[in-house]
Protein backbone atom coordinates (compact mmCIF):
# COMPACT_ATOMS: atom_id res chain seq x y z
CA UNK A 1 0.00 0.00 0.00
CA UNK A 2 2.99 2.29 0.54
CA UNK A 3 5.56 0.30 -1.41
CA UNK A 4 6.69 3.25 -3.47
CA UNK A 5 7.65 5.14 -0.33
CA UNK A 6 9.80 2.43 1.30
CA UNK A 7 13.13 3.81 0.11
CA UNK A 8 13.49 7.45 1.13
CA UNK A 9 15.02 9.68 -1.50
CA UNK A 10 16.85 11.71 1.12
CA UNK A 11 19.47 10.65 3.63
CA UNK A 12 21.44 8.04 1.66
CA UNK A 13 24.93 8.42 3.05
CA UNK A 14 28.19 6.71 3.95
CA UNK A 15 28.53 5.39 7.48
CA UNK A 16 30.20 7.75 9.93
CA UNK A 17 31.26 5.15 12.50
CA UNK A 18 34.55 4.22 10.89
CA UNK A 19 33.19 1.13 9.13
CA UNK A 20 32.79 0.88 5.38
CA UNK A 21 29.26 0.92 4.12
CA UNK A 22 26.28 3.21 4.21
CA UNK A 23 22.90 4.11 5.58
CA UNK A 24 19.63 4.19 3.67
CA UNK A 25 16.45 5.57 5.22
CA UNK A 26 13.44 3.30 4.88
CA UNK A 27 9.74 3.30 5.75
CA UNK A 28 7.43 0.39 6.44
CA UNK A 29 4.74 -0.19 3.80
CA UNK A 30 1.85 -0.45 6.22
CA UNK A 31 -0.88 1.78 7.59
CA UNK A 32 -0.03 1.30 11.25
CA UNK A 33 3.09 0.92 13.34
CA UNK A 34 4.19 -2.62 14.06
CA UNK A 35 6.09 -4.26 16.89
CA UNK A 36 9.62 -5.13 15.83
CA UNK A 37 9.17 -8.84 16.60
CA UNK A 38 6.85 -8.90 13.57
CA UNK A 39 9.33 -7.25 11.21
CA UNK A 40 10.74 -10.39 9.65
CA UNK A 41 13.08 -8.87 7.10
CA UNK A 42 14.28 -5.64 5.57
CA UNK A 43 16.39 -7.00 2.75
CA UNK A 44 18.75 -4.68 0.94
CA UNK A 45 20.13 -5.19 -2.54
CA UNK A 46 22.78 -2.66 -3.49
CA UNK A 47 23.72 -2.26 -7.14
CA UNK A 48 22.23 -5.67 -7.81
CA UNK A 49 24.13 -7.46 -5.03
CA UNK A 50 22.20 -8.70 -1.97
CA UNK A 51 23.63 -7.49 1.34
CA UNK A 52 23.42 -10.24 3.98
CA UNK A 53 21.02 -9.40 6.81
CA UNK A 54 23.86 -10.04 9.27
CA UNK A 55 25.65 -7.02 7.80
CA UNK A 56 22.70 -4.69 8.35
CA UNK A 57 21.08 -3.08 11.37
CA UNK A 58 17.78 -1.26 11.79
CA UNK A 59 17.47 1.90 13.86
CA UNK A 60 14.07 3.21 14.92
CA UNK A 61 13.86 6.49 16.88
CA UNK A 62 17.45 6.08 18.04
CA UNK A 63 17.28 2.39 19.01
CA UNK A 64 19.45 0.07 16.92
CA UNK A 65 18.89 -3.64 16.43
CA UNK A 66 20.51 -6.44 14.53
CA UNK A 67 18.12 -8.62 12.56
CA UNK A 68 19.00 -11.59 14.77
CA UNK A 69 17.61 -9.57 17.71
CA UNK A 70 14.37 -8.37 16.15
CA UNK A 71 12.28 -11.53 16.74
CA UNK A 72 12.50 -10.99 20.49
CA UNK A 73 11.91 -7.22 20.54
CA UNK A 74 8.42 -7.01 22.05
CA UNK A 75 8.49 -3.49 23.45
CA UNK A 76 9.58 -1.31 20.59
CA UNK A 77 7.87 -0.48 17.33
CA UNK A 78 8.51 0.84 13.88
CA UNK A 79 5.97 3.62 13.72
CA UNK A 80 3.74 4.28 10.75
CA UNK A 81 5.61 6.43 8.24
CA UNK A 82 8.69 6.59 10.46
CA UNK A 83 11.99 6.94 8.65
CA UNK A 84 14.17 4.16 10.03
CA UNK A 85 17.88 3.89 9.29
CA UNK A 86 19.01 0.72 7.59
CA UNK A 87 22.78 0.68 8.09
CA UNK A 88 24.86 -1.76 6.09
CA UNK A 89 28.46 -2.82 5.85
CA UNK A 90 30.35 -3.37 2.62
CA UNK A 91 33.85 -4.65 1.92
CA UNK A 92 34.92 -1.50 0.10
CA UNK A 93 33.87 2.12 0.63
CA UNK A 94 30.85 3.18 -1.39
CA UNK A 95 31.72 4.90 -4.63
CA UNK A 96 30.47 8.48 -4.93
CA UNK A 97 27.49 9.11 -7.17
CA UNK A 98 24.41 7.08 -8.00
CA UNK A 99 23.55 3.65 -6.67
CA UNK A 100 20.72 1.24 -7.31
CA UNK A 101 18.99 0.63 -3.96
CA UNK A 102 16.34 -2.07 -3.65
CA UNK A 103 14.62 -2.87 -0.35
CA UNK A 104 12.14 -5.64 0.40
CA UNK A 105 10.24 -5.51 3.69
CA UNK A 106 8.57 -8.64 5.06
CA UNK A 107 6.05 -8.25 7.88
CA UNK A 108 4.15 -10.83 9.90
CA UNK A 109 0.61 -9.47 9.89
CA UNK A 110 -1.64 -11.56 12.08
CA UNK A 111 -4.82 -11.27 10.02
CA UNK A 112 -3.07 -12.18 6.76
CA UNK A 113 -2.43 -15.79 5.70
CA UNK A 114 0.59 -14.73 3.62
CA UNK A 115 3.53 -12.47 4.48
CA UNK A 116 2.84 -8.75 4.31
CA UNK A 117 5.19 -5.97 3.35
CA UNK A 118 6.39 -4.83 -0.01
CA UNK A 119 9.35 -3.78 -2.11
CA UNK A 120 10.75 -0.66 -3.64
CA UNK A 121 13.74 0.24 -5.78
CA UNK A 122 15.21 3.65 -6.45
CA UNK A 123 18.34 5.27 -7.84
CA UNK A 124 19.89 7.23 -5.00
CA UNK A 125 22.80 9.61 -5.02
CA UNK A 126 25.26 9.25 -2.19
CA UNK A 127 25.23 12.40 -0.08
CA UNK A 128 28.39 14.29 0.59
Amino acid at each position, binding site marked *: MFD*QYIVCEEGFRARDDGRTGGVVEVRMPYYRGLGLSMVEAVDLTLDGVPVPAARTTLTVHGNSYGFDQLPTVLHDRWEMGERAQLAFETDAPLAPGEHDVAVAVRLRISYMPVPGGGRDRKRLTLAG
Partner: protein
Amino acid sequence: MAEHQIKRGVSLYSFQEEYFLRTLSLEDQIRAAADMGARGIEIIPEQSVPGFPQLTDEFVATWHGWMETYGTTPVATDLFLDTKLHADRWLTLAEQVASVRRDVDIAVRLDARIVRAIINTPPEVMEGAAPYAEAHGVRLLLEVHAPFHYEHPWILEHLEVMHRTGSPALGLMPDMGTFVERFPRVVSDRALRDGARPELVDYIVKTYDDHGDTHALMDIMNYRHGGPVEVGLARQATHYIWTDPRSMLPHMPLIGHIQAKFYEMTDEGSEYSIPYERIVPVLVEGGYDGYLSSEYEGNRHIQDAFPVDSVEQVRRQHALFTRLLGTESV
Protein backbone atom coordinates in the same frame (compact mmCIF):
# COMPACT_ATOMS: atom_id res chain seq x y z
CA MET B 1 -36.85 12.06 4.60
CA ALA B 2 -37.66 9.77 7.50
CA GLU B 3 -36.61 10.77 10.99
CA HIS B 4 -33.25 9.41 12.01
CA GLN B 5 -30.41 9.91 14.49
CA ILE B 6 -27.53 9.00 12.22
CA LYS B 7 -24.40 11.07 12.76
CA ARG B 8 -21.37 11.76 10.58
CA GLY B 9 -17.77 11.00 11.42
CA VAL B 10 -14.36 10.17 9.98
CA SER B 11 -11.93 7.38 10.66
CA LEU B 12 -8.45 8.83 10.50
CA TYR B 13 -7.61 5.74 8.44
CA SER B 14 -8.89 7.97 5.64
CA PHE B 15 -5.88 10.27 5.86
CA GLN B 16 -3.24 7.55 5.94
CA GLU B 17 -1.44 8.80 2.83
CA GLU B 18 -0.99 12.29 4.21
CA TYR B 19 -0.08 11.11 7.68
CA PHE B 20 2.42 8.58 6.32
CA LEU B 21 4.13 11.37 4.38
CA ARG B 22 3.73 13.78 7.31
CA THR B 23 1.87 16.34 5.21
CA LEU B 24 -1.04 16.25 7.68
CA SER B 25 -0.48 16.06 11.41
CA LEU B 26 -2.92 14.36 13.75
CA GLU B 27 -4.33 17.75 14.68
CA ASP B 28 -4.67 18.68 10.98
CA GLN B 29 -6.74 15.53 10.43
CA ILE B 30 -9.11 16.33 13.29
CA ARG B 31 -9.48 19.90 12.05
CA ALA B 32 -10.21 18.66 8.52
CA ALA B 33 -12.95 16.35 9.81
CA ALA B 34 -14.50 19.14 11.86
CA ASP B 35 -14.37 21.50 8.88
CA MET B 36 -16.66 19.18 6.96
CA GLY B 37 -19.06 18.75 9.83
CA ALA B 38 -17.91 15.19 10.50
CA ARG B 39 -17.65 15.54 14.24
CA GLY B 40 -17.22 11.92 15.28
CA ILE B 41 -13.57 10.88 15.30
CA GLU B 42 -12.45 7.27 14.90
CA ILE B 43 -8.76 6.73 15.53
CA ILE B 44 -6.37 3.86 15.01
CA PRO B 45 -4.08 4.28 18.00
CA GLU B 46 -1.42 2.05 16.45
CA GLN B 47 -1.32 4.42 13.49
CA SER B 48 -1.68 7.80 15.09
CA VAL B 49 -0.16 7.55 18.56
CA PRO B 50 3.64 7.35 18.54
CA GLY B 51 4.82 5.24 21.44
CA PHE B 52 1.74 3.00 21.42
CA PRO B 53 0.72 1.18 23.57
CA GLN B 54 1.95 3.77 26.07
CA LEU B 55 -0.13 6.92 25.96
CA THR B 56 1.50 9.77 27.83
CA ASP B 57 -0.62 12.01 30.01
CA GLU B 58 0.53 14.85 27.78
CA PHE B 59 -0.80 13.13 24.66
CA VAL B 60 -4.12 12.38 26.30
CA ALA B 61 -4.48 15.98 27.50
CA THR B 62 -3.65 17.27 24.02
CA TRP B 63 -6.20 14.91 22.50
CA HIS B 64 -8.98 16.10 24.74
CA GLY B 65 -7.94 19.68 24.05
CA TRP B 66 -8.34 19.11 20.32
CA MET B 67 -11.78 17.64 20.84
CA GLU B 68 -12.81 20.78 22.69
CA THR B 69 -11.14 23.16 20.24
CA TYR B 70 -12.69 21.60 17.16
CA GLY B 71 -16.02 20.54 18.63
CA THR B 72 -15.34 16.90 17.85
CA THR B 73 -16.16 13.73 19.78
CA PRO B 74 -14.00 10.63 20.17
CA VAL B 75 -16.26 7.86 18.91
CA ALA B 76 -14.23 4.74 18.26
CA THR B 77 -10.77 3.24 18.39
CA ASP B 78 -9.62 0.39 16.16
CA LEU B 79 -7.78 -2.48 17.80
CA PHE B 80 -5.51 -5.05 16.20
CA LEU B 81 -4.89 -8.48 17.63
CA ASP B 82 -1.32 -9.56 17.00
CA THR B 83 -1.85 -13.28 17.39
CA LYS B 84 1.50 -13.75 15.63
CA LEU B 85 3.44 -11.44 17.93
CA HIS B 86 5.96 -14.20 18.50
CA ALA B 87 7.74 -15.85 15.60
CA ASP B 88 7.48 -19.32 17.08
CA ARG B 89 4.01 -19.54 18.62
CA TRP B 90 0.53 -18.05 18.64
CA LEU B 91 -0.74 -15.93 21.47
CA THR B 92 -2.67 -17.96 24.01
CA LEU B 93 -6.32 -17.22 24.67
CA ALA B 94 -5.40 -15.43 27.89
CA GLU B 95 -2.82 -13.30 26.09
CA GLN B 96 -5.32 -12.40 23.38
CA VAL B 97 -7.90 -11.35 25.95
CA ALA B 98 -5.22 -9.30 27.73
CA SER B 99 -4.42 -7.55 24.45
CA VAL B 100 -8.07 -6.60 24.01
CA ARG B 101 -8.29 -5.39 27.60
CA ARG B 102 -5.25 -3.18 27.03
CA ASP B 103 -6.99 -1.66 24.02
CA VAL B 104 -10.19 -1.13 26.01
CA ASP B 105 -8.09 0.83 28.51
CA ILE B 106 -6.69 2.97 25.70
CA ALA B 107 -10.19 3.68 24.36
CA VAL B 108 -11.28 4.78 27.82
CA ARG B 109 -8.34 7.16 28.13
CA LEU B 110 -9.24 8.66 24.77
CA ASP B 111 -12.90 8.77 25.86
CA ALA B 112 -14.09 6.59 22.98
CA ARG B 113 -16.93 4.23 23.90
CA ILE B 114 -16.59 1.91 20.92
CA VAL B 115 -13.69 -0.38 20.07
CA ARG B 116 -13.42 -1.98 16.65
CA ALA B 117 -12.44 -5.63 17.03
CA ILE B 118 -10.54 -6.64 13.93
CA ILE B 119 -12.03 -9.44 11.87
CA ASN B 120 -9.44 -12.01 12.95
CA THR B 121 -10.50 -11.69 16.61
CA PRO B 122 -11.74 -15.16 17.59
CA PRO B 123 -15.24 -15.48 19.09
CA GLU B 124 -13.83 -16.89 22.33
CA VAL B 125 -11.66 -13.77 22.72
CA MET B 126 -14.72 -11.56 22.30
CA GLU B 127 -16.49 -13.62 24.94
CA GLY B 128 -13.48 -13.49 27.25
CA ALA B 129 -13.07 -9.73 26.95
CA ALA B 130 -16.77 -8.80 27.09
CA PRO B 131 -17.10 -8.49 30.89
CA TYR B 132 -14.09 -6.16 31.05
CA ALA B 133 -15.44 -4.01 28.22
CA GLU B 134 -18.85 -3.89 29.85
CA ALA B 135 -17.37 -2.91 33.21
CA HIS B 136 -15.59 -0.01 31.48
CA GLY B 137 -18.59 1.17 29.51
CA VAL B 138 -17.10 0.19 26.17
CA ARG B 139 -18.73 -1.72 23.32
CA LEU B 140 -16.52 -4.19 21.52
CA LEU B 141 -17.77 -4.40 17.95
CA LEU B 142 -16.59 -7.03 15.50
CA GLU B 143 -15.97 -5.54 12.09
CA VAL B 144 -17.90 -7.34 9.39
CA HIS B 145 -15.33 -6.89 6.66
CA ALA B 146 -15.23 -8.31 3.13
CA PRO B 147 -15.05 -11.07 2.13
CA PHE B 148 -17.15 -11.93 5.19
CA HIS B 149 -20.88 -11.35 5.35
CA TYR B 150 -23.80 -12.05 7.66
CA GLU B 151 -24.26 -15.67 6.57
CA HIS B 152 -20.59 -16.58 6.74
CA PRO B 153 -19.64 -19.31 9.25
CA TRP B 154 -17.04 -17.07 10.92
CA ILE B 155 -19.64 -14.37 11.51
CA LEU B 156 -22.21 -16.96 12.58
CA GLU B 157 -19.80 -18.18 15.26
CA HIS B 158 -19.53 -14.62 16.54
CA LEU B 159 -23.30 -14.14 16.43
CA GLU B 160 -23.71 -17.30 18.47
CA VAL B 161 -21.52 -15.80 21.23
CA MET B 162 -23.33 -12.47 21.08
CA HIS B 163 -26.76 -14.05 21.35
CA ARG B 164 -25.83 -16.72 23.89
CA THR B 165 -24.09 -14.32 26.29
CA GLY B 166 -26.45 -11.43 25.61
CA SER B 167 -23.56 -9.17 26.58
CA PRO B 168 -24.43 -5.52 25.99
CA ALA B 169 -20.73 -4.96 25.34
CA LEU B 170 -20.67 -7.08 22.18
CA GLY B 171 -21.89 -6.16 18.75
CA LEU B 172 -21.10 -5.62 15.09
CA MET B 173 -19.39 -2.93 13.05
CA PRO B 174 -20.34 -3.34 9.40
CA ASP B 175 -17.71 -2.25 6.89
CA MET B 176 -19.41 -0.94 3.76
CA GLY B 177 -16.76 -2.75 1.74
CA THR B 178 -19.18 -5.69 1.96
CA PHE B 179 -21.43 -3.80 -0.46
CA VAL B 180 -19.15 -3.34 -3.44
CA GLU B 181 -21.61 -3.58 -6.29
CA ARG B 182 -19.16 -3.03 -9.10
CA PHE B 183 -15.43 -3.43 -9.29
CA PRO B 184 -13.56 -0.28 -8.18
CA ARG B 185 -12.11 1.23 -11.34
CA VAL B 186 -9.23 2.81 -9.41
CA VAL B 187 -8.08 -0.75 -8.77
CA SER B 188 -8.45 -2.05 -12.33
CA ASP B 189 -6.91 1.14 -13.76
CA ARG B 190 -3.92 0.66 -11.51
CA ALA B 191 -3.48 -2.89 -12.77
CA LEU B 192 -3.49 -1.58 -16.34
CA ARG B 193 -0.81 0.97 -15.45
CA ASP B 194 1.17 -1.86 -13.86
CA GLY B 195 1.12 -3.67 -17.19
CA ALA B 196 -1.84 -6.04 -16.89
CA ARG B 197 -3.27 -7.26 -20.19
CA PRO B 198 -6.44 -5.31 -20.90
CA GLU B 199 -8.49 -8.33 -22.00
CA LEU B 200 -7.72 -10.12 -18.74
CA VAL B 201 -8.58 -7.03 -16.69
CA ASP B 202 -11.85 -6.81 -18.61
CA TYR B 203 -12.56 -10.46 -17.87
CA ILE B 204 -12.08 -9.95 -14.12
CA VAL B 205 -14.10 -6.73 -13.99
CA LYS B 206 -16.94 -8.19 -16.06
CA THR B 207 -17.11 -11.34 -13.95
CA TYR B 208 -17.28 -9.22 -10.82
CA ASP B 209 -19.76 -6.69 -12.16
CA ASP B 210 -22.05 -9.48 -13.36
CA HIS B 211 -21.84 -10.85 -9.80
CA GLY B 212 -20.53 -14.04 -11.32
CA ASP B 213 -18.44 -16.74 -9.71
CA THR B 214 -15.12 -15.18 -8.73
CA HIS B 215 -13.73 -18.21 -6.91
CA ALA B 216 -11.64 -19.51 -9.81
CA LEU B 217 -10.50 -16.18 -11.24
CA MET B 218 -6.93 -16.63 -10.05
CA ASP B 219 -6.79 -20.01 -11.76
CA ILE B 220 -8.25 -18.63 -14.95
CA MET B 221 -5.66 -15.85 -15.01
CA ASN B 222 -3.06 -18.57 -14.77
CA TYR B 223 -4.68 -20.56 -17.63
CA ARG B 224 -4.66 -17.38 -19.74
CA HIS B 225 -0.96 -16.80 -19.04
CA GLY B 226 -1.52 -13.86 -16.76
CA GLY B 227 1.34 -12.76 -14.54
CA PRO B 228 1.51 -11.50 -10.98
CA VAL B 229 -0.44 -8.33 -11.76
CA GLU B 230 -3.39 -10.17 -13.32
CA VAL B 231 -3.39 -12.83 -10.60
CA GLY B 232 -3.19 -10.12 -7.96
CA LEU B 233 -6.17 -8.34 -9.48
CA ALA B 234 -8.10 -11.60 -9.52
CA ARG B 235 -7.31 -12.07 -5.85
CA GLN B 236 -8.69 -8.59 -5.18
CA ALA B 237 -11.88 -9.63 -6.95
CA THR B 238 -12.34 -12.47 -4.48
CA HIS B 239 -11.84 -10.06 -1.58
CA TYR B 240 -14.58 -7.67 -2.58
CA ILE B 241 -18.13 -8.82 -2.15
CA TRP B 242 -21.58 -7.62 -2.99
CA THR B 243 -24.41 -8.52 -0.67
CA ASP B 244 -27.78 -6.86 -0.28
CA PRO B 245 -27.48 -4.02 2.26
CA ARG B 246 -30.80 -5.21 3.67
CA SER B 247 -28.85 -8.17 5.08
CA MET B 248 -27.93 -5.79 7.92
CA LEU B 249 -31.52 -5.29 9.01
CA PRO B 250 -31.97 -8.42 11.17
CA HIS B 251 -28.81 -7.47 13.07
CA MET B 252 -29.60 -3.82 13.75
CA PRO B 253 -29.73 -4.17 17.55
CA LEU B 254 -26.10 -5.34 17.44
CA ILE B 255 -24.85 -2.67 15.06
CA GLY B 256 -23.20 0.20 16.90
CA HIS B 257 -20.93 1.79 14.30
CA ILE B 258 -20.49 1.86 10.54
CA GLN B 259 -17.17 1.99 8.72
CA ALA B 260 -18.09 3.82 5.53
CA LYS B 261 -15.37 2.36 3.33
CA PHE B 262 -14.93 3.96 -0.07
CA TYR B 263 -12.54 3.87 -2.98
CA GLU B 264 -13.49 6.77 -5.23
CA MET B 265 -15.89 9.65 -4.93
CA THR B 266 -16.61 10.72 -8.50
CA ASP B 267 -16.90 14.27 -9.80
CA GLU B 268 -20.65 13.65 -9.83
CA GLY B 269 -20.64 13.07 -6.07
CA SER B 270 -21.27 9.33 -5.89
CA GLU B 271 -19.10 6.45 -4.80
CA TYR B 272 -18.14 4.57 -7.95
CA SER B 273 -18.54 1.07 -6.49
CA ILE B 274 -20.62 1.26 -3.33
CA PRO B 275 -24.25 2.41 -3.70
CA TYR B 276 -24.61 4.64 -0.64
CA GLU B 277 -27.80 5.99 -2.19
CA ARG B 278 -29.35 2.58 -1.42
CA ILE B 279 -27.40 1.78 1.74
CA VAL B 280 -28.19 4.85 3.82
CA PRO B 281 -31.99 4.42 3.49
CA VAL B 282 -31.59 0.87 4.84
CA LEU B 283 -29.80 2.24 7.91
CA VAL B 284 -32.56 4.83 8.38
CA GLU B 285 -35.20 2.12 8.02
CA GLY B 286 -33.41 -0.03 10.60
CA GLY B 287 -33.29 2.78 13.12
CA TYR B 288 -29.51 2.95 13.16
CA ASP B 289 -28.45 5.82 15.41
CA GLY B 290 -24.63 5.70 15.36
CA TYR B 291 -22.03 7.24 13.11
CA LEU B 292 -21.23 6.88 9.44
CA SER B 293 -17.45 6.90 9.78
CA SER B 294 -15.56 7.53 6.54
CA GLU B 295 -12.85 5.08 5.55
CA TYR B 296 -11.15 6.29 2.40
CA GLU B 297 -9.02 3.56 0.85
CA GLY B 298 -8.43 4.85 -2.67
CA ASN B 299 -5.04 6.42 -2.04
CA ARG B 300 -3.05 3.24 -2.47
CA HIS B 301 -4.54 2.65 -5.91
CA ILE B 302 -3.80 6.08 -7.42
CA GLN B 303 -0.64 7.26 -5.66
CA ASP B 304 1.59 5.98 -8.50
CA ALA B 305 0.09 8.32 -11.06
CA PHE B 306 -2.07 10.97 -9.42
CA PRO B 307 -1.88 13.35 -6.49
CA VAL B 308 -3.75 11.94 -3.50
CA ASP B 309 -6.20 14.36 -1.86
CA SER B 310 -7.85 12.35 0.89
CA VAL B 311 -9.45 15.41 2.45
CA GLU B 312 -11.25 16.26 -0.78
CA GLN B 313 -12.39 12.65 -1.19
CA VAL B 314 -13.78 12.54 2.35
CA ARG B 315 -15.38 15.94 1.86
CA ARG B 316 -17.21 14.61 -1.19
CA GLN B 317 -18.43 11.59 0.75
CA HIS B 318 -19.82 13.85 3.44
CA ALA B 319 -21.57 15.97 0.86
CA LEU B 320 -23.22 12.73 -0.27
CA PHE B 321 -24.10 11.77 3.31
CA THR B 322 -25.54 15.22 3.93
CA ARG B 323 -27.72 14.84 0.86
CA LEU B 324 -28.86 11.35 1.85
CA LEU B 325 -29.42 12.16 5.52
CA GLY B 326 -31.25 15.37 4.83
CA THR B 327 -29.08 17.40 7.15
CA GLU B 328 -27.33 20.63 6.30
CA SER B 329 -23.62 20.61 5.81
CA VAL B 330 -21.77 22.67 8.38
